[in-house]
């Protein structure tokens, strides 16, 4: 079974981009592209061949992550927000699957990715929902997880 995720990372802190790349790599996944602004995200994501986008809310051009999330979700790319400020995310999660809260740990991200592999590739997900991942209310209801 294909358990590798190809991940597009939208994060303006280069150190955190790098950290995520290591986390993804060590969990058996692949970072296929990255962006630090809304413009970069929207122009690069369509050709990145990603299965999933991890999107920070505060980007180099301001709090544009929510908009980026909406745009990528509209392109059919599953989105998970990574943020220290979940208040900025609208109630419908802007079309995203869920939120990973900052500061996250390596194990936390690995657990979340385990869940997301099945959520993205063969839903509904079988893995248990890890505590570091908050699902969008609509999906939590559809998948009956909490």
């Amino acid at each position: 079974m294909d358990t590798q995720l190809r991940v597009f990372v939208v994060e303006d802190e280069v150190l955190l981009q790098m950290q995520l790349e290591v986390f993804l790599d060590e969990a058996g996944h692949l970072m296929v592209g990255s962006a630090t602004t809304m413009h970069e995200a929207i122009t690069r994501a369509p050709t990145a061949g990603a299965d999933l986008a991890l999107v920070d809310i505060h980007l180099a051009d301001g709090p544009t992550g929510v908009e980026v999330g909406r745009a990528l979700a509209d392109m059919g790319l599953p989105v998970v927000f990574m943020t220290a400020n979940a208040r900025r995310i609208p109630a419908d999660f802007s079309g995203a699957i869920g939120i990973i809260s900052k500061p996250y740990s390596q194990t936390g991200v690995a657990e979340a990715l385990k869940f997301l592999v099945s959520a993205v590739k063969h839903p509904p997900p079988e893995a248990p929902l890890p505590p570091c991942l908050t699902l969008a209310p609509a999906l939590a209801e559809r998948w009956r997880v909490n």
Partner: protein
Amino acid sequence: MEARDAWKLTDRLQAPSGKGDPFAAAVRATRMPMVVTDPGQPDNPIVFVNDAFLQLTGYERHQVIGRNCRFLQGPDTDQAAVSAIRAAVESKTDIAIDILNYRRDGTPFWNALYLSPVTDDDGELLFFFASQLDVTQRKRAELDVIEERDRVEAAVAERTQELEVALQARTDLLHEVDHRVKNNLQLISALVLIERRKATDAATKATLTTLRERVEALSAVHRLLYRNDNVVRFDVAGFIREFAAEAAQARGKPPVGLKLDLDSISVAAAFAAPVALMASELVRIAITHALASGTERYISLSIKPTSDALYRFCIADDGTAEGIITSIEPDQKSFIELLATQLHAKVHWNGYVGPSHSICVDLPIDEPPRGG
């Protein structure tokens, strides 16, 4: 026909003084303005007014007889009041109402109108009778009071608004600081990660792993403080549950089993960091011990209140190996003792729970007693 003609008493009213009956004379002479209208004629015209009415309104008698009283109304007259009077007239009931009227010279005055139908013994409507009273003074005072009240309310609303804005600014600032703290913790863990990947010798790697785990404990504190939307109290049980699950997952393959018996205990947020660092250190000791022994199947973690002021946090093995105490590095012990001093906590290094070996800490729930 006698009843229909009853209003003709106004003829008598109109008659020169001294000639009519004493009642008519009184109505003519009173200083209270009064009118009588005849609903039997089209548009209910005035058929009698006394001198006081003419004095109040500034009209002459021939200018008002035969007209409907609405000529007293003007641009600022409240249409709701007019409607109320119309309804009273149509339903032949009496009404007392304050209405803004205008004199002949255009000056407005507040008219306390009292209007009532007059019927004969059979209940047949004969005419309407009304008295008018200039209450401009009282009304102005009333309006002043209302205006003053509105002014005060507006001032209060404005002040409230200012305070709400200030409170919002403070809340926004708190969120902003919270946001930066979390981002910085993430950056610190990224910096540690970079060094750990560069490190070539096992000792440096181990040191940086310990550092990473301690930073992660602090990270979990800030995640929890925010998530529960309570930045004043720190949920110790929630922290241990989350941290232990991640640590067991991170270290062991397959993960070490966890037996949790956690009472809900929250402490002042000021102690969140040292409590979390101590608890996470003990959890890591227990997991390391279980993995090192090779025989331990699970570890137990418990917190229980032991009195109003104290709670006890215990880690225990499953009793199949040497005591946990044997798995502790000297610097781990001094790290925990250091935090215990700050927290006014007491560590019991070598305890037993049944066959299991345990390490327990007694911690104060609230302010640690200040040494005198």
